């Protein structure tokens, strides 16, 4: 099994995307080795941004979508063939700015795939503007006076919107990241992992994150929400940041709800049913 591609990597030296990439490859390799799925069953769906170069760097099926639209493309993939193992990688600009409506509705509709958001709290590939999860006061290139908005909390939002698997991980904590990724991929339904990802060039939170995190285990929804609200992404110096899987629940998936099945399971002689016209007989 070769999960590498011949494409030269163009992330900044020291970028924490490297850790997320190696974690994803490890997760896929483990799942293939466990015979949970074949390599060609995996599909990597990405949006647009630094994270999205994943598409070129991992040797699975790939769908390099539009900015903000990785989620709806993945909705269609599982509707078209529910047997595919879909991993969606999106940025915070992707999932929380341009594609926020898709994010909220995917949490509700529960399509069967894992969504990993590379949350570096900044638009990096466009050279440093605030995103919906950037802390207030951040001096971006579009807001030299400081970001005037408070950040949103995607973990709390996913829980409120009905997501059946909600987690947060840290890009540099590879061991926990791999383990949560595997759980998310295996979860039947929409599995959301917000990955705090230091951007070494425009938004470096490595120092901030040091010693602030603690682990949580799946809990009931009310408690999970309470726990999720303990950190509001504002980079306040005294914060404690919960990490791990907050919530886990099996619900009917989007493709189950609409009776979707793979094309190869359908009756081969379906098309050109001219007899349908007879239904219009007056």
């Amino acid at each position: 099994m070769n999960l590498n591609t011949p494409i030269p990597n163009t992330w900044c030296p020291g970028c924490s995307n490297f850790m997320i990439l190696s974690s994803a490859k490890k997760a896929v390799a483990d799942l293939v080795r466990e015979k949970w799925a074949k390599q060609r069953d995996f599909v990597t769906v990405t949006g647009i941004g630094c994270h999205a170069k994943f598409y070129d760097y991992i040797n699975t099926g790939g769908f390099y979508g539009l900015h903000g639209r990785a989620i709806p493309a993945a909705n269609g993939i599982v509707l078209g063939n529910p047997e595919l193992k879909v991993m969606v990688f999106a940025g915070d600009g992707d999932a929380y700015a341009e594609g926020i409506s898709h994010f909220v509705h995917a949490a509700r509709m529960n399509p069967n795939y894992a969504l990993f958001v590379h949350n570096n709290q900044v638009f990096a590939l466009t050279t440093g503007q605030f995103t919906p999860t950037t802390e207030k006061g951040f001096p971006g290139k579009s807001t030299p006076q400081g970001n005037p908005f408070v950040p949103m909390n995607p973990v709390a939002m996913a829980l409120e919107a009905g997501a059946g698997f909600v987690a947060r991980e840290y890009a540099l904590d590879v061991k926990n990241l791999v383990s949560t990724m595997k759980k998310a991929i295996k979860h039947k339904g929409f599995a959301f992992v917000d990955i705090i990802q230091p951007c070494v060039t425009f938004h470096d939170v490595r120092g901030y994150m040091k010693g602030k995190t603690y682990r949580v285990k799946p809990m009931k929804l009310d408690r999970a929400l309470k726990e999720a609200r303990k950190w509001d992404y504002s980079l306040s110096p005294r914060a404690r940041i919960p990490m791990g899987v907050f919530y886990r629940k099996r619900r009917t998936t989007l493709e189950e709800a609409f009776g979707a099945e793979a094309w190869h399971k359908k009756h081969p002689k379906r098309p050109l049913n001219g007899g349908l016209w007879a239904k219009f007989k007056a």
Partner: protein
Amino acid sequence: LFNKTINMRPGNLIVNFQISVAGEAGQGIARSADIIARDFASRGFYVFNYRDYGSLIKGGENFNLVRVGTEPVRSNNWKSDYAVVFGRFSAHHVKRLERGGVSIGTVPGVKARIDTAAVLRELKAPKIAENSVLLGALYRSMGQPLEFLLRQLECFGKHSGMNKKAATHGYELYGGPVRPLKLPKRRGTRYFVSGSEAVSLGAVAAGMDVYIAYPMTPATPVLHILAGLKGHDISVVQLENEIGVANAALGASYAGASAMVGTSSGGYALMTETLSLQGMSELPLVLYLAMRPGPATGVPTYTSQGDLKFALYGGHGEFPRVVMAPGDPLEAFERMPEAFYLANRYRTLSVVLSDKHLAESGFTFDSRPRFRVRPQRFLAKPGKDYKSYRKTADGVPPRAPAGRVMLRATSYEHDECGYTVEDVGSVDAMVENRLKKFRTIEKAVSALDPVRVHGRGRNLVVGWGSTKGAILDALKQVKDARFLQICYLKPFPAKKVKRALESSRKVVLVENSATGQMADVVAEHTGHFIGKKVLKYDGRPFGGDELAARLRRAFR
């Protein structure tokens, strides 16, 4: 009998008359018209049913016009021979009568005013049965046997008994003027179908796997019809917005499904970003676009052809697409397999262009559809050396389903394997490979009757889409003119259109729009300018007689 509407010819009785039903939304206007239309269609007559309704659910002023003939009828006129009028705001329909016409109803000014409230009280029937009382009265005034009506009222299911009783009362109590129709005996099977029904079942016939949509008038009926179908192996899914819909359809297509989306003008605007993704990713997609008058929210429940150029060009970047415009439901049913065939075979976008008039009007046909192609998914059995974007002589990379192969689909410029490229040499090579598809698709479409010529004459009417019905009806009253129907708007059948233009004396464009966009499209592709345009932009379709008068003037 009636001026203009019924002509006697030796040995052949030609009948052509119109019934209007007008009232408030929620009173069963559309249902009543459907019952009348289905009755005459089932008896072997040709029928056309025009539906006019506002953007509201209860109240207001809705009406239907049902035209009936012994020869094909494909459009309405704005005056009727019989009118059933019972809404608070519909009294003006009493005046929209041909000379000698009969009006029946509950509003002031009708020739036969009927106290439906009293009838319903006596029957202890609910207000909703009012239309059945009036239908009974209408059948009496037309001199038509009650049994025909009662047979159609079976459509009310468990409420049919009550409706039949109401209709029988209306029939028996009617004391107004009677203008009996002398109808010849008709035989032959008639198919009664709306554009929405034809698009829906045509898509199923073409092997569609997934239909994804967000509700928007006038495309919504297709979503409803498909969602209501059982046993056809299709998934019908409503998603959060048109952007989500279009992207999901490409996702489904990536997974190997035959995918289709449906929307109207504003929803199409939201989808254009994704159409561009289609152009780059080359994932097959069929898009049903039912136009309505814009700009913006415009006149949501009315008709327009004003999005022609938007349908042809919507989306950033340069990429090929197919745009077809069926002229009636039979054509729509026949063209749907072509839409899927072209999309899947050439990994392209097929737009099926319709509008409110085609989508929601009822037409009759006496023939069955003939298919020009056999659609399939065109999924290659990928070998070890499969490449998602292999360069080929015709510019079409073989299609394969995700899962069988590690398929790549991308919004970025890419190499043959689907990996991102930005360098000189790679970028232009891939652009050139995609450019070949323009020519390939053009060749394929030229074999699918992209234009049709109806009738004979030295003058030429140019039209496309839903104006076909009114044009054909109008040409019966216009001397020396034939009709060039452009069925494929992209790739544009330039040679065939040019030939028709050059062999005609006077040319007139008929379009349901304010600017006559087809004239520009024709000029772009043929260098010919059509100076004379017969346009209509009040949201209503052309009436047959109305168009005939305007064409006679234009050709003078």
